[in-house]
């Protein structure tokens, strides 16, 4: 690597600006992607694979530094990141100065390789590229030479494409009008907070074709159907709990903008939509919830509305008056806005990575994928969905003791005739 060939720093992209300001002692925006292979992991080979793979991803082999006005990413050449044995409580906060300043961690446990990354480096799609490339390199090191590049598996021998490192938001933030952000207080899940360092995970494993068949019965896609089930679970929880008044129930759902705006970026390129129902208008039957979600998605998920959304978000960052404000004041204001408005805007998070595709040669070695949205900012539960082949996994990550939402959610699936298998890291309470 000669001097001057690679850029020596990167601006944070539009969403990445927010995540570091929300950093607390007990909260980081960390997500986890993991893959279950069919054989036990060899940590020594895995470490070798990490060392070979990560230089291909300059924005992941990076550290966050503070400037006077903005934070930025700086290439990190310190030793690491080192693979480590997995822990019971994943998605721990990542402090910017710890762990040799790396913001990615690689864990292994039995057949599983897990990649944790700070959200300011990139979104799930970017992380999936890193994970799949890592797995391909790892399998090739074990002698499976036939695995080809393509899809999420990038060629580690090539220099990164500049488009992979771009802030794609700025390219598409060009609508002529800035639609207002939604801002409405929604239902908050009440629960007993677990102590710091605990993340409760419940995985539901089911068959894609079964879920697809049930969703079709309701005339919906899998995402719409599962969204509706989560809304139904939240509505049931709100109804059964003690409450002064009902509030609308909404789900924050990230949309992968690469589907609508062509970009190869490995950094963040997502925006949020908020499907929901308002129980103050009357009781919804499940079919009505599905219809509501279905129509909402049809209405909002198009290139025009999303472009407006990006433009609104980019406007604040482009404003010269805001740009010259020192970072600590920005941090304060953004944190206030997030806790007072943005965080109250949704009752739960749900993300669907969809069906993961891997190169043909890699398919026989992979059992399934898992993704976790990580420690929720406020006490609630987050849900992440991913499917591979015929296995669909729904991963709940929550920081509260009660598993009511999860219970209503999976019971609804079971009563719709879907076979669900549950795995969890919850402590067995013997009462």
């Amino acid at each position, binding site marked *: 690597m000669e001097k001057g060939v690679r850029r020596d720093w990167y601006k944070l992209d539009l969403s990445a600006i927010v995540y570091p300001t929300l950093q607390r002692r007990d909260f980081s925006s960390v997500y986890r992607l993991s893959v279950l292979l069919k054989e036990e992991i060899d940590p020594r080979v895995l470490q070798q694979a990490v060392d070979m793979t990560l230089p291909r991803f300059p924005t992941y082999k990076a550290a966050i530094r503070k400037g006077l006005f903005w934070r930025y990413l700086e290439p990190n050449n310190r030793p690491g990141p080192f693979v480590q*044995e*997995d*822990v*019971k*409580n*994943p998605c*721990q*906060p990542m*402090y910017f*100065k*710890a*762990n040799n300043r790396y913001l990615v961690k690689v864990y292994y*446990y*039995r057949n599983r390789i897990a990649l944790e990354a700070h959200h300011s480096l990139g979104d799930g799609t970017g992380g999936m590229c890193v994970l799949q490339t890592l797995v391909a390199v790892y399998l090739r090191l074990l002698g499976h030479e036939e695995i080809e590049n393509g899809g999420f598996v990038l060629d580690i021998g090539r220099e990164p494409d500049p488009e992979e490192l771009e802030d794609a938001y700025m390219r598409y933030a060009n609508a002529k009008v800035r639609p207002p952000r939604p801002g409405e207080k929604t239902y908050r899940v009440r629960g007993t907070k677990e102590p710091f*360092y605990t993340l409760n*995970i*419940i*995985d*539901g494993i089911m068959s894609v074709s079964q879920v697809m068949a049930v969703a079709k019965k309701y005339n919906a896609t899998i995402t719409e159907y599962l969204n509706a089930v989560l809304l139904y679970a939240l509505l049931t929880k709100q109804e059964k709990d003690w409450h002064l008044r009902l509030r609308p129930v909404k789900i924050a759902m990230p949309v992968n903008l690469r589907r609508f705006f062509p970009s190869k970026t490995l950094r963040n390129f997502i925006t949020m939509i908020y499907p929901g129902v308002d129980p103050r208008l009357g009781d919804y039957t499940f079919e009505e919830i599905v219809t509501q979600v279905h129509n909402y998605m049809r209405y909002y998920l198009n290139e025009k509305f999303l472009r407006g959304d990006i433009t609104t978000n980019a406007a604040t960052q482009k404003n010269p008056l805001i740009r010259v404000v020192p970072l600590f004041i920005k941090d304060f204001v953004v944190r206030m806005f997030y806790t007072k408005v943005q965080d109250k805007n949704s009752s739960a998070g749900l993300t669907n990575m969809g069906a993961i595709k891997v190169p043909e040669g890699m398919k026989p070695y992979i059992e399934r994928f898992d993704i976790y949205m990580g420690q929720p900012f406020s006490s609630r539960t987050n849900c992440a969905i991913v499917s591979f082949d015929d296995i669909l996994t729904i991963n709940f990550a929550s920081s509260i003791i009660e*598993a009511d939402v*999860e*219970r209503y959610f*999976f*019971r609804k699936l*079971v*009563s719709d005739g879907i*076979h*669900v*298998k*549950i*795995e*969890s*890291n*919850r402590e*067995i*309470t013997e*009462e």
Partner: protein
Amino acid sequence: MSYCVNCGVELDPSAKNCPLCNTPVINPSDLKTRQQPTPFPKEKGQVETVKRKDLGILLSTVVLATAVTCGILNAFVFQGTLWSLAVIGVCVILWVIMIPVVIYTKQSIYVSLLFDGAAVMVYLYMIAYMIQRDDWFYGLGMPIVLWVIFLSECFVLCVRKLPRSFLTVALYLFTALALLCLGLEFLIDLYLDGQAAFQWSAIVATVCVIVDIAIITLLSRRRLRNEVRRRLHF
């Protein structure tokens, strides 16, 4: 393969309870103790701490530079009085307070308090040396510092070792306040008049004792305690 009788979901072979509803899994045909590998590891991870070495070095340098510069200025430029001692003393106090925060975070609080007291005493002695009068230091400064340190150590000891609640901490605090005022007036009177007579501190002590008695009553009666908790919870 077990199913939860309540939720109807299939459970992992290692599960002893349903993660959703906590119903125990009992399979009558498979009662042997299960030693299945769990889907998640059992060990908890710890978050790596951030080393504040750089900050420690930076702050130490700033403090040291201030002290040395003032010392040199005093020695060669403004030579009238030993004014630099006042600045150097403050630097010493700042540095000693800094130790548990940025330099050695594992230092016990008792030792930290002792060091803080010692630093304050050194500072007072420097002032005494600077103005060439030290009777107030031995008669007033040193005893008051010793008394304050002693009370703080006792307070910390009580808070740490005895059962801690909002009420007990208030109890320790008011007791310490009463003792502090009594001690202060005693030492001041002794230094000024040569004999001790309690006046204003007696009033403070009385008030504190009344508050203490009220707290002790609350603490000793469970019914009262619960009543207070019920009415004042927030």
